[in-house]
């Protein structure tokens, strides 16, 4: 008979190991994406979520298979956390035919509908009403599905944030809004351009919602938060707005060195690295190195395999240019 190892909040050992595995995979994927960018294999731009893995991983583990994820252009992790193909994502970054969107979306638009990853949206705020629409559809179809919508701190000052929150509350939609407050919009600190200290949580009361401000770098806290908010949505008790405090380890996008951030601040947040911190916590909780080391190496192997598959893929096919504008698969606009 085995004894279940649980945290005070009751997260069992296997769930914690899933959280850890997912965080490590997301970390390794992002690091590899960065290396491939430096090799000029990832063209265009990419927005890495290094340092923010706990949020995507926690929700990924807490969500039901048929729930919906809507995320932003910093969305590799949120998409992979739903079980989307890592090779398909990597190949998409490389502009290959075996990319999950055949090379037509790129890094900022990863989507895998078969896994509930309903899209990565690159216009700040646009996906909040869209996520609310998916929740509306789930509500009227009585499907029990929940829509989870991730966005950055900068989104809290754009109109769609307010339009979507209001509609979600008025219609009591099954949706969780998750603000990943990584302290900076692109280069400008959010606090320097926002009327309140906590850009999402301090606005919750305007929509009759409970302010939820949590440590986004703590996978256990994020998992508990996700379970509670998703449960509330699924049982017809309406939307939640979560503000998760976090920090990106790198710049806003590709080669941004992020020199606008004070060194002491960066050091402090690196000390709160969600992956390292969780590893140490699991060890302290009696999960031995022998359980964690294989996860580390398996994640690395998975990323290696995905990278190899992506590299082997042929370039995106030219027929794709005029494909899939319409549901008939084509782009014809005249007879």
């Amino acid at each position: 008979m085995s004894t279940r190892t649980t945290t005070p909040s009751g997260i069992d050992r296997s769930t914690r190991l899933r959280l850890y595995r997912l965080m490590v995979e997301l970390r390794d994927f992002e690091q590899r994406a960065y290396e491939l960018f430096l090799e000029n294999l990832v063209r265009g731009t990419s927005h890495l979520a290094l340092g923010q893995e706990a949020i995507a991983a926690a929700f990924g583990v807490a969500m039901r298979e048929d729930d919906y994820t809507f995320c932003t252009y910093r969305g590799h992790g949120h998409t992979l956390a739903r079980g989307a193909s890592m090779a398909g994502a990597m190949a998409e970054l490389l502009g290959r035919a075996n990319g999950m969107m055949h090379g037509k979306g790129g890094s900022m638009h990863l989507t895998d509908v078969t896994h509930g990853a309903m899209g990565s949206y690159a216009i700040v705020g646009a996906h909040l009403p869209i996520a609310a629409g998916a929740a509306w559809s789930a509500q009227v179809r009585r499907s029990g599905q929940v829509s989870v919508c991730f966005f950055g701190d900068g989104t809290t000052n754009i109109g769609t944030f307010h339009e979507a929150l209001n509609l979600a509350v008025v219609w009591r939609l099954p949706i969780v809004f998750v603000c990943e407050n990584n302290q900076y919009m692109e280069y400008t600190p959010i606090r320097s351009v926002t009327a309140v200290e906590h850009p999402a949580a301090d606005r919750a009361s305007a929509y009759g919602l409970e302010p939820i401000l949590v440590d986004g770098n703590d996978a256990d806290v994020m998992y508990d938060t996700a379970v509670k908010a998703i449960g509330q949505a699924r049982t017809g008790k309406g939307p939640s707005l979560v503000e998760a405090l976090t920090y990106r380890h790198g710049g806003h996008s590709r080669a941004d060195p992020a020199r606008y951030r004070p060194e002491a601040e960066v050091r402090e947040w690196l000390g709160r690295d969600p992956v390292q911190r969780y590893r140490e916590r699991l060890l302290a909780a009696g999960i031995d190195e022998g359980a964690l080391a294989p996860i580390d190496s398996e994640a690395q192997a998975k990323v290696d395999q995905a990278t190899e598959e992506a590299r082997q893929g042929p370039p995106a096919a030219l027929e794709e240019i005029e494909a899939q504008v319409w549901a008939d698969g084509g782009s014809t606009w005249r007879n």
Partner: protein
Amino acid sequence: MAQLTFREAVAAGIAQEMERDPLVYFIGEDVAAAGGVFKATVGLLERFGPERVRDTPISEQAIVGAAMGAAMTGLRPIVEIMFSDFLATCWDMVANQVAKTRYMTGGQVSLPLVIRTANGGGTRFGAQHSQSLENWAMAVPGLKVLAPSTPADAKGLLAAAIRDPDPVLFFEQKSLYGTAGEVPDGEHLEPLGTAVIRRPGRDCTIVALAAMVPKALTAADRLSGLDIDAGVVDVRSLVPLDTRTILGEVRKTGRLFTVEENPRLCGWGAEIASIAADECFDDLDGPIVRITTPHVPLPAADVLEDAAMPSVDRIVNTVKGAMR
């Protein structure tokens, strides 16, 4: 056949499809309890209930965004944007999100949704409630664009738009809401991508859209008294565009006129003129002439608005002058 007004025909088209398909939902500002500010959706709330016919806050981005999310996940939503001018407040949703998402995802997502909107001038509302904006929509790959001119087409094209698997922008010309005409009883559908020859002609072809169609027909009557046999083609579907019907008429007559309510630059007539010049240059007996509103925001005062928009007099005089 029943005599319906254009606004009654709109409601009839929505009702036909809501009756047929339980996944059709309809939302918008003042569309349910009030029946629409133009009374084009009267009776739908009573007939289909508050879950399927729902009033929204004044949140155009949330309205179109919610329709998109719902369309991606199994519903067939219809939304109303009260005035087409308000599309500017949610153009990101329309042009960046709705129009592009199927393409960007390699076809993973279908977006069967309809955005209905009251379009155009003639109501003395001024420049922010009177624009004719179908050319904005036409310029965005991924949107189908319809603008009916008769009650029968209002019902039939709207019903077909709701059934269509792609996003459709459906422009209802405000100045047509009160007009009446025969509408087929029972299920009525008109196919997207088809123009209609409203009047055959021997000497020239006038191509018109929405409220410009009845004006072009009146002008053609007057031109016949001047020994000019003008035909009129109702484009009605800008995307997809029925170039076969339009160019077929132009080849017969050798002359092409377009009548457009939109301001001059990049109006839909410019695209048709370009296609005609490219593909039937040898059939043309004279220059292609576009009759449009000048390139100005539409003024409010009745005398100014009437003089700015193409009128029957202007169509007659322009055609007569060019055919001399």
